[in-house]
């Protein structure tokens, strides 16, 4: 597999007043094309900062991030960030939201939008406004809006954290089904280790602040994965132990 994203020795600190606090401390990571990477770590360790840098919203102080061999300079539509708090535009309908990222020259934008609405189970809600949708539906609309532009990379920053366990599991299953159809490289930040082993090819465990890579676990199981599989459970426990939680 070819390298999609190459992260070389990046550092980031934030200064408040005279104090400078290191947030990211020397992270190296190479992500292959089509790979699904999950990043877990203690809360407040700098996961979101790392994601913002990889997605291009924040430049690293040192080091470099290259996508397809080209150094990252700002965000672009090749990789779409699905943020923790959601960014579906409340003043546009579901269909208008899904059409938002599509090129103006593209024909039949509405049909493309409706196809992706259908894909995430929002058929019949195309003309609804976001305030008329539930939290889970909003999340799915956001994922559909990202998928509609056929991005090579999806950056997902705790996308399911605001959902209940059942809804989170359902959307995860849908996401895997979609990824079967349309291959994307995915980077997922999560605090849910089970979610990580359910979805990812590799799980990156970050250390406490300032974040560096503590360990990387391979998840050598084919999809569909059963969460009750003892080997998967074992791996989950290993990762939790790495995070300092004994089960």
């Amino acid at each position, binding site marked *: 597999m070819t390298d999609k994203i190459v992260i070389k020795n990046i550092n980031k600190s934030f200064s408040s007043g005279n104090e400078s606090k290191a947030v990211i401390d020397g992270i190296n990571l190479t992500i292959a094309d089509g790979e699904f990477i999950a990043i877990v770590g203690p809360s407040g360790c700098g996961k979101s900062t790392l994601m913002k840098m990889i*997605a291009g919203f924040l430049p690293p102080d040192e080091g470099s991030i290259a996508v397809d061999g080209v150094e990252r300079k700002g*965000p672009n539509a090749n990789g*779409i960030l699905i943020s923790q708090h959601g960014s579906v535009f*409340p*003043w*546009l309908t579901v269909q*208008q939201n899904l059409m*938002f*990222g599509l090129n103006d020259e593209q024909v039949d934008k509405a049909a493309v939008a409706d196809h992706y609405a259908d894909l995430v189970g929002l058929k019949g809600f195309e003309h609804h406004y*976001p305030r008329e949708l539930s939290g889970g539906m909003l999340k799915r609309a956001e994922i559909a809006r990202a998928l509609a532009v056929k991005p090579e990379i999806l950056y997902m920053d705790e996308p399911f954290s605001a959902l209940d366990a059942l809804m989170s599991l359902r959307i995860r299953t849908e996401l895997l089904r979609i990824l079967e159809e349309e291959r994307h490289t995915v980077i997922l930040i999560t605090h849910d280790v089970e979610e990580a082993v359910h979805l990812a090819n590799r799980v990156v465990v970050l250390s406490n602040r300032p974040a560096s890579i503590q360990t990387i676990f391979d998840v050598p199981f084919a999809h569909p994965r059963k969460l009750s599989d003892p080997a998967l459970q074992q791996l989950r426990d290993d990762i939790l132990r790495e995070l300092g939680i004994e089960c």
Partner: protein
Amino acid sequence: MIKLKKIIPPLVLITALITLWWTVVVQTGSVIFPTPLQVVMGALELIEDGTLWEHISSSLMRVGTGFLLAVITAIPLGLWMGRVDGAYATLNPVFQIMRPISPIAWIPLAILWFGVGNASPIFLIFIAAVFPLIVQTAAGVHTIEPRYLNAAENFGVSRYKLYRQVVIPAVLPDLIVGMRISLGVAWLVVVAAEMIALRSGLGYMIMDSRNAGNRYDLVIAGMIIIGVIGLLLDGLMRLMEGHKSVRWRYDR
């Protein structure tokens, strides 16, 4: 039923105030201060000879023109100031200095520049209406949540689309609030602005009734009409808050 519950208490209060006014005038035996009946009769007199409509339409025309000029100026300027930090840093202090200057203070300059025709009151109304709208628009742009702007940046859309589908819809609720405030101030200033008007307008009518024979019934009729029209104008602006694409902001 719910509507009735909202309407009855203010109606009762207004009736009580009118009764109080009437009683006090009768009790004190004032010769100058009119009773509510005299005010109504005075207004009817003006309706019959047609001058009331003339005054109302002149005032509305001036306020409408001044307000529209303010909207055309303030919205692009406010959007620009909201998006470009340099423009904000340069212009905002100037507008903050201009804003607290009462439009009445501009009257001598208005006469100097525009004479005593229609242009002077329109200019004064414009001055009164433009600053609050600029400030509100720029503030609206500043409060757009970064996650929406980030998303737009992420999808790499054109400038036109960024404004058309993100910036403008996001500030629209603030624009409506700004326009309500701005139109309210414009209407508030109409009396002062029409002190220098030639021969028409509700403000002129009030001043003229006082000067030409102490017709206090017409003064009060003019005041009440200004108040009622102001209420109607605000109601008209509030209708915009019901539009589907801005409800996301008000329904919370």
